[in-house]
């Protein structure tokens, strides 16, 4: 749910990074945080365990610039990927405007990817959203690893509808901004559509 404030001339949108445990959602946000100018980003918050596993969410506010005289702000969130944190994942999806699914390219994680994607669909539905109707992009992360599955295989399993997709290596930053730009574009295009 975007928030448009005509008084301060701001548009605020919420983007959620979803995916199985250890797929690199937090790493995506950390890279964005490290590589953006201090004047466009707020503080990054990570509610994590002592072993740096996401417990509730990570949060990063970004100001992308102006569009038609309105400041556009994106609030990026990650969900905790581990299966047993499902209750928390549902809460974070509340009011979402766009979703990035971060898939782990390692062959042995394919089942976890598929399970997490199903879980995303179910949890969105509970909030009254349809994954196929909201701005949504796919990121194939960890492409640099030797045990990465082929793109064709991942596409077939995770992206049969052909949403925008990106190969990435979040730890080096490859593909991270391309993914963010694509989802942000999708959210703004949706805003335009809703107005039209």
């Amino acid at each position, binding site marked *: 749910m975007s*928030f*448009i404030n005509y008084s301060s001339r701001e548009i605020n949108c919420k983007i959620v990074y979803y995916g199985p445990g250890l797929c690199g959602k937090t790493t995506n946000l950390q890279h964005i945080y490290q590589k953006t100018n201090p004047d466009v980003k707020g503080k990054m*918050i990570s509610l994590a365990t002592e072993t740096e596993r996401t417990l509730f969410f990570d949060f990063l506010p970004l100001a*992308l610039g102006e569009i038609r005289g309105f400041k*556009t702000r994106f609030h990026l969130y990650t969900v905790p990927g581990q299966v047993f944190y499902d209750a928390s994942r549902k*809460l974070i999806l*509340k009011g979402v405007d766009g979703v990035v699914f971060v898939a782990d390219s390692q062959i042995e994680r394919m089942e976890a990817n598929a399970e997490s994607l199903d879980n995303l669909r179910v949890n969105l539905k509970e909030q*009254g*959203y349809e994954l196929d109707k909201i701005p949504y992009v796919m990121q194939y992360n960890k492409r640099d690893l030797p045990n990465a599955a082929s793109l064709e295989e991942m596409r077939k399993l995770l992206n049969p509808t052909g949403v925008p997709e990106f190969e990435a290596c979040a730890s080096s930053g490859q593909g991270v901004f391309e993914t963010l730009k694509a989802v942000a574009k999708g959210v703004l295009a949706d805003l335009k559509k809703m*107005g039209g």
Partner: protein
Amino acid sequence: MLESQLVMQPEDFDKVLAIIQKLVRDANAKGVFVVDKAGQLVGEAGEMQGVDSTSLASLTAGCVAATGGLAKIVGEEEFPIHFHQGQRDNLHMTLVGDRMILVVVFDERSSLGLVRLRVKKAGSELARLFEEIRKKAETEAASHGSPFAEITDDDIDNLFAD
């Protein structure tokens, strides 16, 4: 179907500010914040300029959402009032209508009883106002459409030109 957008016109925003500025005075509060349940800051008032209100909004929404989840587990619909007591500052959160949260930060200059009393009145005023804003946004969207209908693909691309 997406939850409806929150669209706030300057005159409505002024009304929100007037209510929370009055609440700051009436409750002797340090600061008052209105946050939506998705974690966006809607308005703030008081002497807490410089505080990271964006993070405050996001964490408030997370806290309320987690407590709401707990409520359902124990068989409650919601816990509409939350109170966090600190050594110096305290935090009082109340649900306003079905999508807003009113946060009051106060110290020894005030008391929980006073804050509760004042929040009750301000909360119901805000709930009425947000209901009006929602209705107005619906009728306006139906009659005029949104100004963002005019956003072009170039506008969007320009945001990312670096």
